């Protein structure tokens, strides 16, 4: 067990898989002697560069992912460090429309074991915030993980590398270089499994990425007022663990979904669809969505702050929802 930041944990997972499996290689921009953008590949060049397994690529994201798809079909397990999630929009044909479809089209005879790493989210970088997660979630077969703790980052990255088909790992820039925590390299976390981060009895807050942290802070505030919020961290958004979210909300009686992604697509919309897609065709609890408006992420610090749901927004939504519930006994 070592204490690591999320960024260190991801690099450690990549290094451990590269050490264990010679078919794993890394390709991306500035991942060589530079060490990766925001240290995303720190130490990997020194460890694996001489073996030709850390490949510095020119600006050509579609081909970077396309070559990875082809190499994966041929027997490699490539990891593409795509730098920022925005750039995923350049790669949808090879990654999502085709790479993620091969296993279906061949009935599993040919698979495409490929990981794409991409940084996203509002944060110290002041740019490149868009995660494009809705876009990613709109193709069958493409898996998407979004860790929020060093342990999850480590374990989900290993699961992603071992997965038989394409997985995008979204790395939130406000979390990557946060606090260190213990990481157990033996702990396996499967893709598609959400986690309860805080037990609660009065309502459920489901979130991903940075919003998990804010939900936990809001829960701490609410606790002072005697409201116990359960906080669910999606961890993977595709496959989406609708079951755990539903079970929690059924127990607590109310659900708030907090997302940094745009309304109408992404985890929040998929969750809503999943919640309604039952034999009953409706939820037994009220649902409240907290998301940015449907505009690009603005630049000015004050506008950016207003854009993303805050701790106060979450706490406020929780209070409002609870008063609504008290007001309306029947649906």
């Amino acid at each position, binding site marked *: 067990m070592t204490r690591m930041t999320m960024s260190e944990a991801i690099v450690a997972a990549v290094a451990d898989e590269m050490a264990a499996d010679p*078919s794993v*290689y890394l390709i991306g921009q500035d991942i060589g002697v530079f060490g990766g953008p925001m240290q995303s590949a720190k130490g990997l060049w020194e460890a694996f560069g001489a073996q*030709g*397994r850390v*490949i510095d*690529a*020119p600006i*050509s994201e*579609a*081909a*970077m*992912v*396309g*070559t*990875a*798809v*082809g*190499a*994966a*079909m*041929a*027997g*490699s397990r*490539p990891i593409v460090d795509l730098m920022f999630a925005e750039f995923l929009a350049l790669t949808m*044909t*090879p990654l999502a*429309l*085709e*790479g993620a*479809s*091969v*296993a*279906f*089209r*061949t*009935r*599993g*005879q*040919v698979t495409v074991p490929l990981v794409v790493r991409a940084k996203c989210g509002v944060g110290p970088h002041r740019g490149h915030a868009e995660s494009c997660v809705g876009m990613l979630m709109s193709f*069958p*077969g493409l898996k998407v993980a979004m860790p929020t703790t060093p342990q999850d980052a480590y374990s989900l990255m290993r699961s992603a590398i071992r997965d038989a*088909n394409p997985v995008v790992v979204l790395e939130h820039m406000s979390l990557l270089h946060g606090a260190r925590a213990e990481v157990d390299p033996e702990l396996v976390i499967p893709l*598609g499994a959400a986690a309860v981060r805080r037990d609660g009895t009065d309502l459920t807050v489901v979130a991903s990425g940075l919003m998990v942290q804010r939900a936990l802070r809001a829960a701490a505030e609410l606790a002072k007022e005697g409201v116990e919020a359960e906080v669910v961290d999606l961890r993977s958004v595709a*496959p989406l663990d609708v079951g755990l979210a539903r079970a929690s909300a059924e127990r607590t009686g109310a659900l708030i979904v907090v997302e940094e992604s745009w309304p109408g697509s992404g985890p929040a919309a998929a969750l809503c669809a*999943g919640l309604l*897609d*039952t034999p009953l065709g409706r939820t037994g609890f009220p649902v409240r969505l907290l998301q940015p408006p449907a505009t690009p992420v603005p630049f000015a610090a004050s506008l950016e702050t207003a854009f993303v749901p805050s701790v106060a927004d979450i706490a406020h939504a929780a209070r409002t929802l609870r008063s609504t519930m008290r007001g309306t006994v029947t649906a």
Partner: protein
Amino acid sequence: MTTELALWQAMVEARAFDQAMCRHNGHWHEARGEEAVFVGAYADLGPDDVVAPHFRGTCAVALQRGTSPETLAAGVFGTRGSDSGGHWRGDICPTPGPRSIGMFSGSLGTSVSYATGAALHLARTSPGAVAVCSFGDGTANSGIVAESLNLAAMLALPIVYVCQDNQYATSLPSAVALAGERVSDRARALGIVATDIDGNDVLAVREAVGQAVARSRAGAGPSFVHALTYRMGGHYMNDPETYRTPEEVAAWAERDPIARLQQLLVGHGVLDPAEAEAHSAATHARLEAIVAEAKERDDEEITPTVSAFAEDVRPELRSAS
């Protein structure tokens, strides 16, 4: 190395399959006239090499690599006997596998990056193995082709790119769409060794690709072969062909790649004209029968259950509905 007689036979078989499909399948893209390019380019590869043919001709390459015409025809009609069990279009992706790349959606261009990635895999794991990758003159303009060639050159990958220039992308002449004099100059600009050859001469194709393959096997990196040929049929069945003249088509009929090699082999005494005709006729009849039989199975072979394709691969992604 494939004998010249075998090249001729492969071209005859390719055309027989192609022409039978023209008769039986309204969705077919005829490849008549271009056989020298795809037969010549893929003739001398081994089982460890990666093939990524252009969609026009891809069934012929699969035939050459040993897939049975019955399986291929099932793929084109989308019936159970195909390599994808009817899940995907066998006309543009006949035998997907770790060493065989097809179109995984209807988008052209990406397969060039897949072949380039396969070459990267080969370079890392199987020194001496190569990838051969064809694409049309139209496809040559897509951005991912430029990106892939640059990566291949930069990483000195073992891959041979073949531009199967049949002078049209549907209705748009390559003379218009491919700015600049020769498409091969795009490769030269990247430091890739490039040649321009007569794509209706199967021996010239085999020679040029063969040399390029040898260079790649020796670790000298990628090559580019620009093979000029002509699409004798329409882009697809029922193409009105308003964009070209019958005279132009007729002039290229004179340069039929099969007739050309046949004449040469007859001249060399390798082939007897009557035998040649008999072999041709028999091959056409054989494939006509196979394709006609495959067509009969259309629509009736696959149990129409959702689970057949949804559950096979990824249970966790099934719709709850």
